[in-house]
């Protein structure tokens, strides 16, 4: 097979204040023409550096120490400025992770897209605009002529990414590079974008390189997969070989860690202990040796080569960088120290008959959409949106409730309302039978000991100029426990979340995502609360770290009898930790019931779309069709009838006219649908 792009033994180093960082070492990848190649790795694996190296866009302090990049037989590294411009403009296009920052906010799409076509001198302006409209239509943006006059902020996230793909395809590139194309998007949008990239690849015959940490996405999209770790390629091969016959211990561990991998509800997540090694200086031996459960002596001092693995699929050679596959090696398989798989499911005692710890009834949170004067002037009385529109739910002691929904579904607003951070319009929130709505702050403060919150952004939710020690002792100071030896208390909290004690003097920006998350957990638990509200506890964390945090949360739940309200859009994670699931759409709960039941037989079409929409790391079950189209409507413009009907594949006339009321199914679930799919 002809290789469009061939990277041969590439090494890239960065000069930093603390010495030289070996960001890429000896990376060889060939991208065959007309194929989709996926590059998987956690943060710090060097996958972005690789892309920048190919585009020749590396930062000024970088050195390409060794290696060759060949594109259609030409040496990319020797291109001069004009050849480089042609290479970037004509041959390679990129789809970026965050279209909001990669598109120009002050130019409309017509201008941005005609600008991209500047090299097409023969085309008239009218032709360029027509071409832009055609591509916008092609990526599924209706009324393209009209839409071209819009600016990026007028598009929703999904539309923006579609426009980004249209822009990337405009020059008919030979190679399309997509850097985390769906990370900023919701599950249903993600499925649509994956589909779009696949379509584009077959229609335009483009070669695609996808960079992602999302194994499900890679499995659905790619033909060939490259697994990177700490700046090295540890394994590469056909997608089926990687997912069904992984050989490198890192690949195996990574696949195991992916929560969507396992369909059982085990309440224990596999993890990869340890951290990504420091890339200062040249590491001896195998980069993964410190974290590898198979590592033997040779791994510590001798760097393994890339050894081919026999019996691979198709044309792509399957190879892994591990001593175990060295044909001339004298590897002795160690007596396999089984993964300490604590498969003993930790059970939390839940008193089914006890009154609920937290009970929310018909809660409404309203936000005004315009000032009072403007509303009077335009003759609208009480202009508002209902971010939360009549939500009821209950959590018992020791129970975990998972609240799932896409962005804009009102789940974070709901959580903040419970904590009194948002004004409640109507309804009641009872905690231990005590009404929280309308409580003045000084009475509420006592309640805050028992209700703690973990915020979404692990680092951003820690005050940046405070040390970890100060942050950990702060809850105690606020709640008047000044007499306690604060240092001891902080140390105890550190131990509880297994954070080294010397971290107490660090500042938040010196922590990794997982460490910052541990501080967040410790802070939430400092006052031994009864209820913890966790907003996207695994957002922004690598797969191998996600498991650690969730395991910690589960252990602490068992230990302290905590109740959790976990908010997430990540269904695989939530499925494994929740007892009860509440699925939110446009501020309403559309399905509410036992977690396992919702997953096995979703009753609401939206739940079904979410459950089926999550890409699984299984290349054999590629979806032909996207289950639901369209996007979450704006709250200011709620559809009439059933609010889900514009996106519902089963919608009937009744759904368009009549708003459904909550229906109780035989198995105890509540569904907001005229025609529940199950039960």
């Amino acid at each position, binding site marked *: 097979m002809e290789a469009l792009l061939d990277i041969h033994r590439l090494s890239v180093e960065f000069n930093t204040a603390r010495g030289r960082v070996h960001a890429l070492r000896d990376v060889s990848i060939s991208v065959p023409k007309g194929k989709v190649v996926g590059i998987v790795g956690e943060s710090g694996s060097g996958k972005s550096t690789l892309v920048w190296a190919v585009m020749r866009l590396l930062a000024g302090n970088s050195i390409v120490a060794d290696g060759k990049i060949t594109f259609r037989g030409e040496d990319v590294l020797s291109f001069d400025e004009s050849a480089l411009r042609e290479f970037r403009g004509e041959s390679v296009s990129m789809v970026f992770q965050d279209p909001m920052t990669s598109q120009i906010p002050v130019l409309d799409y017509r201008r941005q897209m005609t600008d991209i076509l500047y090299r097409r001198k023969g085309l008239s302006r009218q032709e360029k605009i027509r071409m832009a409209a055609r591509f916008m239509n092609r990526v599924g943006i209706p009324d393209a002529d009209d839409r071209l006059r819009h600016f990026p902020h007028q598009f929703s996230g999904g539309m923006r990414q579609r426009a980004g793909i249209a822009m990337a395809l405009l020059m008919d590139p030979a190679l399309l590079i997509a850097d985390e194309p769906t990370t900023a998007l919701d599950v249903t949008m993600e499925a649509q974008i994956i589909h779009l990239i696949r379509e584009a690849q077959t229609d335009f015959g483009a070669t695609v390189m996808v960079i992602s940490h999302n194994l499900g996405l890679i499995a659905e999209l790619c033909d060939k997969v490259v697994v990177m770790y700490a700046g090295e390629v540890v394994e590469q091969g056909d997608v089926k070989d990687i997912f069904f016959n992984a050989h490198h211990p890192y690949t195996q561990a990574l696949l195991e860690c992916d929560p969507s991998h396992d369909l059982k509800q085990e309440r224990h997540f596999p993890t990869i202990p340890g951290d990504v090694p420091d890339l200062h200086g040249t590491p001896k031996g195998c980069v993964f040796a410190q974290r590898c459960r198979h590592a033997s002596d040779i791994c510590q001092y001798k760097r393994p080569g890339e050894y081919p693995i026999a019996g691979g699929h198709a044309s792509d050679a399957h190879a892994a960088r591990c001593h175990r596959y060295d044909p001339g090696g004298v590897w002795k398989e160690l007596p396999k120290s089984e993964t300490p798989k604590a498969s003993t499911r930790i059970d939390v005692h839940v008193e089914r008959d006890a009154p609920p710890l937290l009970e929310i009834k018909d809660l409404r949170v309203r936000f005004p959409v315009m000032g009072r004067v403007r509303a009077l002037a335009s003759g609208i009385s009480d202009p508002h949106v209902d971010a939360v529109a009549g939500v009821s739910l209950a959590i018992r002691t020791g129970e975990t409730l998972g609240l799932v929904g896409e962005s804009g579904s009102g789940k974070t607003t709901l959580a903040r309302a419970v904590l009194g951070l948002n004004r409640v319009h109507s309804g009641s929130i009872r905690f231990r039978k005590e009404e929280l709505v309308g409580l003045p702050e000084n009475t509420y403060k006592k309640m805050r000991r028992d209700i703690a919150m973990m915020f979404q952004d692990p680092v951003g939710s820690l005050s940046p100029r405070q040390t970890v020690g100060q942050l950990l002792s*702060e809850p105690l100071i606020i709640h008047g426990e000044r007499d306690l030896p604060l240092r001891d208390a902080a140390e105890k909290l550190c131990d509880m979340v297994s954070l080294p004690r010397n971290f107490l003097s660090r500042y938040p920006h010196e922590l990794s995502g997982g460490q910052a998350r541990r501080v967040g957990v410790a802070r939430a638990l400092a006052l031994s609360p009864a209820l913890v509200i966790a907003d996207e506890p695994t957002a922004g964390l690598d797969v191998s770290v996600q498991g650690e945090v969730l395991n910690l949360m589960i252990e602490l739940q068992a230990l302290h009898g905590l109740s959790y309200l976990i908010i997430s859009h990540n269904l695989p994670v939530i499925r494994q930790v929740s007892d009860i699931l509440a699925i939110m759409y446009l501020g309403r709960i559309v399905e509410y019931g036992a977690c396992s039941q919702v997953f096995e037989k979703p009753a609401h079409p939206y739940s079904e779309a979410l459950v089926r929409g999550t890409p699984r790391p299984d290349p054999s079950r590629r979806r032909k069709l996207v289950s639901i189209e369209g996007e979450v409507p704006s709250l200011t413009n709620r559809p009439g009838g059933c609010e889900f009907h514009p996106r519902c594949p089963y919608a009937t006339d009744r759904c368009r006219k009549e708003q459904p009321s909550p229906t109780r199914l035989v198995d105890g679930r509540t569904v907001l649908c005229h025609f529940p799919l199950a039960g």
Partner: protein
Amino acid sequence: MTMDAVGTFRQRPEKLALLLKNKQGMIGFVLVVAFFLSALLAPFLATHDPAQLDIPARLTGPGADHWLGADQLGRDTYSRVLYGGRVALKVAAIGVTLSLVIGLTLGMVAGYGPRWLDNALLLLFDTIRSFPTIVLALAAVSLLGPSLNLILSIVIITSIPSYARLARTSTLALKNTEFIMAERSLGAGTFRILFRHVMPNVIGPLLILAAMDVPVVVTIEAGLSFLGLGVLPPTASWGTILNEGYLVIRTSPWPVVAGGIPLVLTTLGFTLLGEALRDIFDPKLRGIR
């Protein structure tokens, strides 16, 4: 890449080292330190009492007794310049510190507090800002008579709005961040949130503004004293030295030169220091220069 985030570095020593590495910052730092030392040590460095008359020596140039000459009353110019520095330091230190503290507090309150309070404070700031400092000072002095304290109060009142505006904008940006939400959810009081969590994050740019404000304040005092509206004789200040020297400039230029040079050097020192601080605190500029 999270490489930068992992390394352990303490902020303060690094900032000082960066400041001294920067040539501008180095010069500014040295000048500012010299200004502080000369003002503080004036009683030890001075050769004469600044008010003591030595009639035979009046309007002489530099000599063994009077290093920088003497003025029209025979007072030692060198000693008067040193003592004049004390007035400048007093105005600069008290004026700038108080405006910084009051401006910061009001700005944070405006940014974090309810909408009506924000609007009321903004109205107040804009009203004050619409008066030109010098004209306001002239009006106040002609009503209440010249005094150093009056000048100080006017300087403080008129420079509060710029500090407050800056603090308010940064506070508004911080108000809805997750870490402030996290503090609120813990039950932290407004006072705690403002002074422990908001202040450290907004004070950086204000300190730079303060360093750049010092020369302005010093010149306002000198200017008003020059016009005879500031400190009263026989107190020495750079402004009064210039004022009195200006009358006798044809006979002896020494008082004007001696009063002018420290004014120029101090102004330059603080300006350079302020600019260097701005570059250091703003990481986006750090790489460029």
